[in-house]
């Protein structure tokens, strides 16, 4: 079965192609096509997962491109990590397909939407089963396109256009880093197969300094894709896309691809302590940085987006602190609860036709399903004990603690506090208090939307139990057990870490409760007491503006400089050359006056010069 794992991405591709070519005729039917094909993929993924568990890893390959002696291959490989990712991706994608049927039912471009979803799912599934870096890179870019197309789905909106462009370009900057790292690695190792790379790196064939450089460059790719600082600005803007897309791409799958990349190449990173530090620090910084921005945003999707950035930073921090299992574990739980949150947010937006949380409120009673599932997601992400996020977060904190990165450990705790606070702020503002929406008649969403949410809520609540300090570390053993390159020892954590994490979470929730539910504390505490800080945070630290005034204007300036050179130097030189020729020509035609004497004079002077030259040189030229 494992060598036929290539079938999994094939079905979404088929869905994409069929809808692209015949979608026009099918109209409403197209959603069923998309759902059906993705469902098949999901089933196959589950089968692959169990086959892998039973029989171990496997795969198949063929030659794709030959350059002289060099060969590049294409194929599939199923390792525990890949199998896990397959299931996560196909499951979330399947659920989002179903959800979209309800959410997008009134959109006339439903077919296009489903075909794009198919394309993205195809690329994402193919990405996670790549046996080599080149193939990974190829699909890495393709998921970028899928994301680009879906962000720009409402193409007639200027914001959507700008956001799509920004997303593509920002991730491209990261991709170039990945490309350079990949090529450098290739010339060191002579192959891009993961196994060859790990063997070479493990054997110390790559010089230390270069390895660090390569690892950091690859990490730059992950930074771009996963919205890490400083390439994070595209991710909140990407919320211009339809909400199911945000759930699928910008929460659960594609943005996690960066984390997946680091995880998949973990041996490379592990061989370079400097690179690990970079990963950990960037991750940690992003985690807290994005969390602070999330505290003050008022757009429901943007809060979730910054929360995503922050959580991805968390995962990176875990990986950088050698917490391989912790990172992947959090990736999985996060995929579930964040997809859930987005879908629930989408459900809310669907109901109130607004994204501003100031204009919501009191929806708990009106949306009897959305409310509770949102609460579950919020609890999970806040790290409230017994929900999935609690276990994975705990794992991360333990990893940083054991790695001796106490600074990051503290950052992790603070970020967890912020997370709990802003998530509950969101929850309280949306679902409690009085009704502030302009839409009076708020209805619960149709069943096609609620069922996926319920499934995800279930997972968000319970998926943590596959790797707990109490019931065994099944996931960790499985993920790391198979590979000779991955070290894994489970840390029997000090209990106080877990306690601290829980306390922090409750503290955050409590604060949010006091401010937004009880209203016993001033809401505008920050904006009134520290207006400068508030403005800074509310405007996302002015990073967008910073980029605009530096990078964009610089590029534009170089461009104008170039066209200046073109117009006033290149063209002038050309004009000068042609002018000289023209002048010579007009001089010649002026001499052509019809006056015999002039002709004679010229002929004579020519002759005189020739004779002079002959005499001068003694008759030998």
């Amino acid at each position, binding site marked *: 079965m494992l060598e036929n794992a290539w079938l999994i991405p094939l079905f979404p591709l088929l869905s994409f192609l069929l809808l692209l070519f015949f979608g026009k005729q099918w109209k409403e039917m197209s959603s069923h096509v998309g759902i059906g094909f993705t469902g098949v993929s999901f089933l196959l993924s589950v089968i692959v997962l169990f086959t892998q568990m039973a029989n171990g890893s496997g795969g198949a390959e063929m030659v794709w491109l030959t350059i002289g002696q060099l060969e590049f291959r294409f194929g599939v490989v199923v390792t525990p990590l890949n199998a896990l990712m397959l299931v996560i991706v196909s499951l979330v994608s399947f659920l989002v397909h179903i959800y979209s049927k309800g959410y997008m039912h009134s959109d006339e471009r439903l077919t296009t939407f489903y075909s794009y979803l198919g394309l993205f799912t195809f690329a994402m599934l193919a990405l996670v089963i790549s046996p080599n870096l080149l193939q990974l890179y190829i699909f890495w870019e393709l998921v970028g396109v899928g994301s680009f197309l879906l962000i720009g789905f409402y193409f007639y909106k200027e914001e959507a256009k700008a956001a799509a462009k920004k997303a593509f370009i920002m991730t491209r900057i990261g991709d170039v880093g990945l490309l350079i790292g990949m090529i450098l690695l290739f010339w060191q190792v002579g192959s891009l197969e993961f196994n060859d790379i790990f063997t070479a790196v493990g054997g110390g064939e790559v010089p230390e300094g270069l390895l660090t450089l390569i690892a950091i460059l690859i990490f730059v790719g992950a930074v771009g894709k996963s919205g890490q600082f400083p390439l994070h600005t595209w991710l909140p803007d990407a919320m211009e896309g339809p909400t199911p897309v945000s759930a699928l791409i910008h929460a659960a799958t594609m943005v996690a691809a960066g984390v997946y990349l680091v995880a998949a190449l973990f041996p490379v990173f592990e061989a370079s302590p400097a690179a690990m530090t970079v990963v950990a620090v960037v991750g940690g910084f992003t985690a807290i940085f994005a969390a602070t921005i999330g505290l003050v945003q008022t757009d429901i999707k943007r809060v979730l987006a910054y929360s995503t950035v922050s959580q991805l930073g968390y995962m990176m921090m875990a990986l950088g602190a050698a917490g391989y299992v912790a990172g992947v574990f959090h990736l999985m739980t996060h995929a579930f609860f964040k997809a859930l949150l987005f879908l629930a947010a989408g459900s809310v937006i669907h109901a109130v036709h607004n994204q501003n949380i100031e204009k919501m409120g009191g929806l708990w009673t009106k949306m009897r399903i959305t409310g509770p599932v949102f609460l579950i997601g919020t609890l999970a992400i806040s790290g409230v004990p017994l929900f999935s996020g609690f276990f994975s977060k705990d794992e991360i904190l333990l990893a940083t603690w054991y790695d001796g990165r106490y600074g990051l450990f503290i950052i992790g705790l603070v970020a967890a506090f912020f997370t709990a606070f802003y998530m509950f702020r969101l929850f309280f503002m949306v679902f409690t208090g009085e009704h502030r929406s302009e839409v009076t008649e708020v209805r619960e969403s149709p069943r096609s939307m609620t069922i996926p949410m319920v499934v995800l809520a279930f997972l968000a609540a319970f998926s943590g139990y596959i790797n707990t300090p109490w019931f065994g570390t099944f996931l960790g053993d499985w993920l790391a057990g198979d590979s000779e390159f991955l070290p894994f020892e489970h840390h029997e954590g000090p209990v106080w870490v877990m306690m601290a994490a829980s306390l922090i979470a409750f503290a955050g929730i409590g604060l949010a409760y006091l401010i937004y539910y009880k209203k016993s504390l001033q809401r505008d505490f920050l904006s009134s007491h520290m207006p400068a800080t508030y403005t800074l945070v509310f405007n996302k630290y002015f990073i967008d503006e910073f980029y605009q005034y530096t990078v964009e204007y610089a590029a534009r300036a170089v461009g104008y400089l170039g066209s200046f050179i073109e117009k006033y130097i290149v063209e002038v030189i050309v004009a000068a050359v042609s002018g000289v020729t023209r002048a010579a020509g007009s001089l010649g035609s002026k001499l052509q006056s019809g006056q015999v004497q002039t002709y004679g004079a010229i002929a004579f002077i020519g002759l*005189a010069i020739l*004779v002079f030259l002959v*005499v*001068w040189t003694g008759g030998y030229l």
Partner: protein
Amino acid sequence: MSGELFAFLVLALLAILGGILMLNLTKVIHMLLSLVLTFLAIAGLYVLLSAEFVAIAQVLIYSGAITIIMIFGIMLTRHNDTQKTKGNRTRNMVVGAGVVLFFFTMYFSINQVSFGDQATSLHVENTKQIGIELYSKYIIPFELMSVVLLVSLVGAIILAKRDDEEEAEQK
């Protein structure tokens, strides 16, 4: 200073003087007459070079015939014509420079020429020698030359003759 050298110097100076006058005088007829001086001086030089026949021919043809023809030419076209002073100054300068360049180049080569021998018998019956050569060795060029003369005669008449039709029109 031998008499020969003296004669050469005088004649050469006269010839050059005639040329320079030709360049600098303003009236066309004067220019022409100054050249007669040059031609005559050249004839004298021919005598110095033991070429009496050529000298006579020079006097007859150049100083006589050609000059007269030219004078006719002047009279038939425009009398008292003067050389226009305004010429193309740049062109004159350029041509002058070219001429000077040419002069010095040739001067440089001439200086290096030296031939040892000197013909001795040229002045003895000069005309007879020429006659014998002309009618024996150079008979064909000589006859051809007569053809040239004939053709030029006919050609000159035809060119100079007024076109009949044109004349008719003008009348």
